[in-house]
């Protein structure tokens, strides 16, 4: 059985109260020869994963080459987005294919949502301890 990896909540706004801590998970993204170590916001309310434009650019993605249009909602609805698939690896777990809505927004965090981060990883939140655990899907606790 795979042991979950435990992460601490991170301060989203330095110097604020405990309420500013959010669940950011370190993740390594790969696309072709490009490798990017980033953190993604675990957002259970988000229907999809969202990749900010600069991160996609750093992964070597070319906007004009991505032909699948994706319509986002909320504040991101006003900007175009494209569907992209990259490899994502959390801790030393096997990498998985992650589908992202690659938005032209630059001032948004990388969001890890239901499709398909939470379909690939089981996540348990311990907010009272400011911690969360992640492990690959499909294994009983």
């Amino acid at each position: 059985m795979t042991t979950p990896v435990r992460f601490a909540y991170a301060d989203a706004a330095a110097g604020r109260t405990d309420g500013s801590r959010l669940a950011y998970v370190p993740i390594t993204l790969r696309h072709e020869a490009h490798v990017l170590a980033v953190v993604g916001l675990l957002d259970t309310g988000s229907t999809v994963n969202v990749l900010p434009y600069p991160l996609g650019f750093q992964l070597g993605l070319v906007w004009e080459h991505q032909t699948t249009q994706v319509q986002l909602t909320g504040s991101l609805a006003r900007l175009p987005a494209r569907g992209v698939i990259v490899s994502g690896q959390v801790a030393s777990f096997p990498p998985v294919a992650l589908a992202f809505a690659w938005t032209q927004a630059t001032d948004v965090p990388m969001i890890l949502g239901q499709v398909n981060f939470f379909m690939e990883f089981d996540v348990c939140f311990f907010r009272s301890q400011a911690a969360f655990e992640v492990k690959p899907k499909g294994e009983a606790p």
Partner: protein
Amino acid sequence: MSLTELVPAVKMLPRADKLRLMQLLIIDLAQEEGIPLLAAEAEYPIWTPLNAFDAADTLLQMLQTHQAAP
């Protein structure tokens, strides 16, 4: 004007003015503490794509195609 003088005057105020005074004091204290408050005329983005079901379907189709590819 001291608080002792102020309290009877405040008690004479109509209910709406009392509430308005409370609001003003709360805003004043929050600003002194450096606590940012929401402004009525400002726009606050909600980045979370809630209920983006069409986008989710599109990405799932992309994943199926990706996994079916040799």
